[in-house]
Structure formats: C-alpha cells, structure tokens
C-alpha cells in the first residue's frame, strides 16, 4: 500500500524507467549498479535511479547535483559527505539499509525517534522543492557514497546536465 502510494506520488518526480524516452548505452562499462542510461539519468536493472562513475572518475550529473543539494539541505543535520554528526545519523549508511522507495518516503514524511535517551526528529520535506525536485540526485549521491564508489568531497569531474534533466528541473521548481 505504502509502495503503491509512493509510486503514484513520486513516479513523475523520480523519472522512473516507465517514463519512456531514449534508452541508450545498455551494458554500461565498469562494475557499478547502473544498467542503462535514459535522458541523462542512470538506472539499475530494476529501474531505480542510481549513479554512474566512469573509469576516469567522471560522475554523472545527478550524483554531482546530489552532492550540491545534499550539502545545502541535509548537511546542517547529517554532517558533511553523508558522514553523520552528533545530531543525526550518517545517510551514506542509511541508503545501504533502506531501498530507494523507503528513502523517498522518509524524506517526504519525516521520521521521529523520541524517548528518554533520544531526541531525533526529522521534518517532512514533501513540500520543499529544493529537496523534492532533487530527491533522485540526493539519493544517487548518497548511494555512491555508501557503496564506497565516491570519495568524500566535491566530485572533480562530472557529466553535463542533459536537456531532459534541465527541463524537468525547471518544471518542478516552477510547479505548485
């Protein structure tokens, strides 16, 4: 039920594989989880957004964009590079424990862990365009960190933003 609702709400946001469009580069080089590329985004075989890092270290656009958005929106609680802080847990490890859909659900709806020894509260970001328009970006960045595919710090080289990603971003940020 939860999954279904998520798929309905976020299918459009996430640009899932079912969206159609030009599929390219099936059988991508390297050992990463990316199975194919579509409109400048990379996906696993199951159609879940993921990262792609070329042999020379060039990261895909979403991973780079996720680095930026993470360090604007998430970093003030979860620490630099997804490493966690005294205040909130490391998200690079969280994305290894939970799948993409649960990640989007928690970011959208928040989560609480409040008892005698915990005071952890994550707010709901579902209405925050700075987060939700970039939720795939943030996810694939953290996944790359969690998988150990991406070192700490700013990625040195990146792919360019595709036209499809640019127009999605413009529509999403302008939308109500």
């Amino acid at each position, binding site marked *: 039920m939860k999954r279904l609702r998520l798929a309905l709400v976020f299918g459009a946001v996430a640009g899932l594989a079912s969206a159609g469009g030009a599929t390219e580069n099936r059988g991508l080089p390297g050992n990463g989880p990316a199975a194919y590329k579509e409109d400048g985004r990379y996906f696993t075989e199951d159609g879940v957004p993921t990262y792609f890092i070329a042999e020379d270290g060039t990261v895909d656009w979403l991973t780079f964009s996720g*680095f*930026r*958005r993470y*360090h*604007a*929106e998430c*970093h*003030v*609680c979860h*620490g*630099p*590079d997804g*490493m*966690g*802080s*005294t*205040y909130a847990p*490391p998200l690079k490890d969280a994305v290894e424990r939970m799948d993409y859909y649960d990640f989007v659900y928690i970011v959208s709806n*928040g989560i*609480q862990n*409040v008892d005698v*020894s915990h*005071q*952890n*509260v*994550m*707010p709901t*970001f579902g*209405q*925050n*365009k*700075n*987060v939700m328009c970039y939720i795939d970006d943030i996810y694939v960045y953290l996944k790359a960190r969690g998988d150990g595919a991406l*070192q*700490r*710090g*700013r990625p*040195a080289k990146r792919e360019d933003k595709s036209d499809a990603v640019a127009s999605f971003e413009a529509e999403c*940020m302008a939308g109500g």
Partner: protein
Amino acid sequence: MKKLFAFTSVAALCAGSAALANDELLELMNDPTQWVIQTGNYANHRYSGLDQINRENVGNLQVAWTFSTGVLRGHEGSPLVIGDTMYVHTPFPNIVYALDLNDHGRIKWKYEPQQDSSVIPVMCCDTVNRGVAYANNTIFLHQADTTIVALNAETGEVKWTAVNGDPSIGETNTATVMPVKDKIIVGISGGEFGVQGHITAYDMETGELAWRGYSVGPDDQILFDENTMSLGKPVPANSSIDSWEGDQWKIGGGTTWGWYSYDPDLNLVYYGTGNPSTWNPSQRPGDNKWSMTIIARDADTGMAKWVYQKTPHDEWDYDGVNENILVDKEIDGEMRKLLVTFDRNGFAYTLDRATGELLVAEKYDPAVNWATHVDMDPASETYGRPMVVADYSTAQNGEDVNTTGICPAALGTKDQQPASYSPQTGLFYVPTNHVCMDYEPFRVSYTAGQPYVGATLSMYPAPDSHGGMGNFIAWDALAGEIKWSIPEQFSVWSGALATAGDVVFYGTLEGFLKAVDAETGEELYRFKTPSGVIGNVMSYEHDGKQYVGILSGVGGWAGIGLAAGLTNPNDGLGAVGGYAALSDYTALGGQLTVFKLPD
C-alpha cells in the same frame, strides 16, 4: 560576610521594585563569589575577581563534584550561582535544575517544559540553549520553541510565560535573555529559514511586550529615527528596505541569537544581527541592511542610537551575531568608552560605544583572506566597508560557480563562543576557528518553515598552517595584535574565563578543560571531561572556597561540522579524510564538572 551580603541582596530583590532590581543585579554582578549572568557582567567580560586559584596552584586542581543533566545534546552556556543555589539548564527539552550548594547539589526543584518535538528539526545545527538569566528573584528561561518562562527562583513556580515567535515558520531560540532594569531583552533564531529577525523587550514582572525592533524592514519596524547614526552620519529614511529588492526583506534574516551587552550609564543595549537569507547572494542584491550589523538601542524605548554594518551584502554566511565586549581604555591620552567585537568575518573591531565611531578593524587570524582590509578613511565613499577580494567573492563569481580557498569558513574565525577580557592584563582571550572553505551558491525557492540555504560548502583546516582547526589567542585590542596563540586540533567552541589569579580557562572539543597562564599562554592544567566542551567556563565561591564549573556535551555546529572530520578535496585523493575526526575523541554527553583546589 560574603554570604550575608548575598542574602541581603536577594531579600532586597524580593521586596524591591523592578527598576531597583537592576541596581541590585548590578551589585550582584560585582560580587565575584556569585555568577549571576551568563556573560559575567553587562560588559561581557567573563572575568572572575576570585584569585584563590592562581597560576602557582592551578596545576593542583581536582574534581570537586559532578552532575549529570540527563540530556545527551550540545551543552552551551553555563550554570549560574546566586547565593547558595546553582541553576543548571539543558539543551532541548530545556530542563532547569536548582541545586543546593549547601547539600551536595541536592535538586531543590526541577522545571521541565512541555514542548512540541517538531521544533527540533527547525533548529539549525543542534538543539542547544545558552542558559538561564536571573533578576528580581526570578529565573528566566527562553525555550527552543520561543516560549519565555519566568520561574520563581526559590520554588521553580511559573510566574508568567510569553511567546516570542512561531516555530512553524522556522522561528526558534537558542540564546539566553538579558535582564535590564524592569525588562528582559530577548532575541530570535532562524536565519537559515528566512525569518525576519528582531530583538524584543518584555516587562520583567508581567511578560507584557514593551518594544520590538526588527533587524530588517521599514523604519517603524526597525525603530530608527532621525537621530539614528551610522559612521558619524544620520541614517537616511527607509535605509533597510532600500537596500533590498522588492519584498525580500520580509524573509531577510538578520537574526539575533548572540550574547548581548549593556552600558548602564549610556542606557544602551548592544547586539549583533546575523546573516541575510539566503546564502546565495545573487538572489538578494543590495547591502541587505541591517543584517550583519552592530546595533546600539535605547534600553527603555528600543530606538536605535547607532548602527554599523560589518559585512554589507554577505556572500559567505559571516553571521554577525558575536558578542560586543565593553571596555574603557585610554586612546591618545583620552579615556574612551569602547566596544570590541571579534566578528565571524575574521576582523576584530573597536568602536566608540557612545557614538559608533569606528576606531580599529584588524584581522585576528592571519589566514583571513576574503577582504584585504576595512576602509578607515572617513572621506572615502567606501568608509567602514571591507575591501573584498574578487577571487573570494561568491557574488562576483556568481551562481553555480565554486569559489575556493576562502578564509575563514562560514563558521567564522570565531562563532558565538564568547571571549573573555581581563582588566588585570588588559588582554582579550579569544576562542577561534582556523578553518577555510569552498562556497558554491545556487538558486533556491522559499517555503515557510523549510530550510532556505542555497549554497554548498566544503570546509577544511586553514592551509599552510599547523593543520589544526582552532587557536586560542590573546588579543591586544588597542594595537590590533595577537599577543600569543595556542594551536588546537579542533575549533575552540567553549567560552573563555579569565580570573584575578592570572589564569585563563577554556574547554576543547575533545573534552579537555584547560588552564593557561594569562600572560604567556603556557598550559598549567588540563582534565578530560566525559564529552566534548562547547559550554562556557564559570567560577564562584562557596564556604570560602573557589570553584570552577564547566558543562560537557559535544554538539552544536561544531558537532555537526567536525564530528566526521574535515576533508580538503584540493589536497588530492591521498589526503582526503586525513584530518582528525571529532568522533574519534568523544561521544555525546551531558555533564557538569566542578573543580577546586585540594582541601
């Protein structure tokens, strides 16, 4: 004898009117056996006149007693001691304990507010609280959710409550309040949520709002009139709204969460305003007045007497809230009433606190590079402004460009951790950060109650230096010079205390309480407390014995920024992750440790 004095003072407070209470509070501040205000005194000296513990014997210091606060979060601020009672506060949920110093710290009363936990995530950078205030037999607590509570100091009973802001739009509180005459002066947090910052005075007896001065907005909201001065000239009408585009001032920031000071003779309250919102300067053209500003306001009316904007059109999050320390010193043969501030932007400013005249502006960390200097020529068009270096200007480089190697980082050369001033040595003792950054601004949209940041930062220890992230320095404010500097592995995030025993105390993020020689900086004592220290050192006397107290409990911005350690991508892959991680040294905690000399 000293106890008798304390007793009569408290008795007088109970009986006296609120206006009288201020005189009594002034008297209590001058009694070194007590610690009645977070800042030590109205001048923010954080100096103790006690000298039983001195540079000869401080090496023998030992733990006298400890107290667990029951909360595992960043512990900023310090306890107060009034008479035979110590008042200890905690981070969210903002518990207050009254401890009986005559009975091994027995809990006389405990106050625990009920606050909606949804306030936790709208507090940028941990749920810290910088402590309670005291006046008129009342303890004043300003909770995270901006509820102000007046508690009977003897019983903990609630006298009144008032609400200063709305957490659902990101308005929260981390600061203490300042009792002045018959009012308490109160600030607000939320600069990263696009709030319109303000300072507010409430009636001490009733909690009724007396006046409110915004940091940004129309003149009737910022309480400016034709007599408000800046750099020797009257401030023109609409000075704030003319320095923003359209209605941007309404979400313009300029929050007020630092330490305040007060000059009873001039009847002026001094404080600094924080960064403009967002962190992306291209989204808010103009000087963004009066963010990043020292403001002097009349304590009775709130009307602004003078203002000085330290960082017009901030491009680096140099959140200008740091404390203003009031000292009287001779300049060119004339005694001057001065104000000294160690700003986040890396400049230490000295101003005439009666007029706002700018006298000194010098870097207090040689690593500072975003500006060459502050224009000190009154005839110049850019008088009083920092001369920004184009390479380090995130506005000139523009959106989506990563500006690298900026010093200091957004943490500032110093954050809120308060400095101390010793009238004995004439020196300021300043806890500092030694951290630089890369800063990339980009476009963000505003949603009420959601973070409104708009920049990506990478921070790393200042290059070509000692490799650590902090220094503890002694500063000569007249010469504008560092007298000595102690390198520290981590930022020094603890408020310093200088004493008449020629000792200066401070805490470190690893959890040490350190004592150093006030003249030379030589280390005389260290003790590792259970958790990292971001609290402020205080001292008091009980039964003829001097005590030194410090709260442990790592957290705050330091706990977020430094827990995992810093990296410098510019160092190349080999060095990434090579800097110390705070999590290797300390874990969450919440404890008060009190020290004394052996019996």
